[in-house]
């Protein structure tokens, strides 16, 4: 028997807000979370632009032992998960007695690793590194920390799939629940923002250098874009079987109805029409929907010419030119490992509150973006169903389709 999979909690800690209410306001206002970071200049970055998220003070919430294994990915993830868990009406006592899994997207721990290696080099004695570093250094840091804090007893798995990590985490959780292997999974994505995390990416020359206007720098689909802006934080989505949600009397924020995925099998960094096309069509086929059923597309579009162009071609080819499209990365920057999860949160907020968040800085289309319906300003709109794309280095693609819940 297949199970319907619904969303019962969301949480967000991002450059456009540290909670759902703050982010909702920012999405409506088209607020940019991008800043100029002096530290990046000193470090030798080509681009000094980044989405900014402050390190949260977790001392009021967690013991020393619980905090000591956390660096930015886990710290950010705790904040978004705390909000989602509370929204879902859950807590550690519930999790201890009701099997719940966690599949979280994360693909780096650069800041933590550099700090550990610095200590080891300075002290020349590994026994003086400290007991928390190993739990900060491993890529599964979010899973290790949150599963311990929340006493989770189900699937415990980190999803590392570059900039599609967050999206695949939701997709994989969806499949496990659909098949009846899990009742409830905490999904999400986290992204560190320290200077060590993005230096090598910056070195590829793909980041915007519009230093004189940080808020204008991330401009997906715009003819005059000059690259992406890295960003970070964390987003959490709690998903569960419809039976579980109804039994708990939980509020339902949406239903996952389609998950498509593919690998390009091509270049390590360049996108590829065929791979994206297969991911999109797989999600549509699985959901049993036609383009007329989709009311909004949250594009992956990162503000790089080659990425935006390919996605515009795929959207036009698979879904046509009429469906409203926006890339919330125009406001947040590219939240990388977190993006697939955060963009589901942003889109759910739009669906719940009847609006489409603007693709800010979209002033002039190019040949391909002129063929899709990009929304440059806040627009009131009724959304019953949306599609969210995520594409990553190595050619990993993920597409999720989520509908407004109807019994």
């Amino acid at each position: 028997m297949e199970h319907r999979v619904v969303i019962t909690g969301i949480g967000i800690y991002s450059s456009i807000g540290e909670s759902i209410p703050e982010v909702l306001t920012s999405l409506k206002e088209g607020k940019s979370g991008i800043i100029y970071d002096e530290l990046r200049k000193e470090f030798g970055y080509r681009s000094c632009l980044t989405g900014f998220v402050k390190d949260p003070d977790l001392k009021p919430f967690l013991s020393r032992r619980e905090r000591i294994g956390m660096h930015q990915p886990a710290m950010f993830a705790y904040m978004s998960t705390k909000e989602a868990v509370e929204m879902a009406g859950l807590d550690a006592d519930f999790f201890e007695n009701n099997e719940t899994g966690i599949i979280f997207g994360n693909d780096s721990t650069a800041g933590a690793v550099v700090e550990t290696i610095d200590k080891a080099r300075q002290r020349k004695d590994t026994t003086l590194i400290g007991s928390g570093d190993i739990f900060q250094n491993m890529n599964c840091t979010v899973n290790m920390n949150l599963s311990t804090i929340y006493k989770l007893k189900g699937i415990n798995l980190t999803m590392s799939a570059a900039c599609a990590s967050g999206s695949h985490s939701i997709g994989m959780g969806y499949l496990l629940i659909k098949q009846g292997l899990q009742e409830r999974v905490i999904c999400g994505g986290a992204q560190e923002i320290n200077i060590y995390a993005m230096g090598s990416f910056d070195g590829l020359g793909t980041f915007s250098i519009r230093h004189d206007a940080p808020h204008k720098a991330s401009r997906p689909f715009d003819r005059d874009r000059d690259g992406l802006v890295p960003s970070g934080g964390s987003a959490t989505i709690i998903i569960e079987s419809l039976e579980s949600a109804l039994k708990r009397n939980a509020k339902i924020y949406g239903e996952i109805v389609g998950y498509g995925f593919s690998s390009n099998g091509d270049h390590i960094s360049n996108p590829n029409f065929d791979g994206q096309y297969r991911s999109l069509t797989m999600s549509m086929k699985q959901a049993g929907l036609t383009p007329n059923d989709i009311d909004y597309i949250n594009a992956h579009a990162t503000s790089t010419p080659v990425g935006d162009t390919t996605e515009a071609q795929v959207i036009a080819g698979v879904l046509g030119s009429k469906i409203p499209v926006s890339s919330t990365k125009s406001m947040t920057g590219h939240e990388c490992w977190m993006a697939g999860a955060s963009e589901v949160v942003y889109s759910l907020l739009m669906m719940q509150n009847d609006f489409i968040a603007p693709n800010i800085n979209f002033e002039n289309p190019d040949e391909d973006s002129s063929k899709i319906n990009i929304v440059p300003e806040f627009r009131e709109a009724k959304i019953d169903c949306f599609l969210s794309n995520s594409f990553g280095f190595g050619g990993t693609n993920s597409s999720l389709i989520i509908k407004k819940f109807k019994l």
Partner: protein
Amino acid sequence: MNRAEIIETTKRFLSEEFEVDPNTIEPENNLQETLDLSSLDYVDLVIVIEENLGFKPSAEDFKSVATFEDFYQMVEVKMAE
């Protein structure tokens, strides 16, 4: 460093590192229970001792330590070496 200085210094860095009320650090109290030390925390205990007192105790050194009084004695011995 005399005994009073050892008590004052260790009370400060132990309460800061392990986030306990300094008033709970009394000679007759059990060190592991008072500081809520798991096996992992002993790694950090060694580090704060090394950073604040300049020596690195071994696992062997902790074998005779149950109370803070035992701990102060161990510190005195090690600092005298």
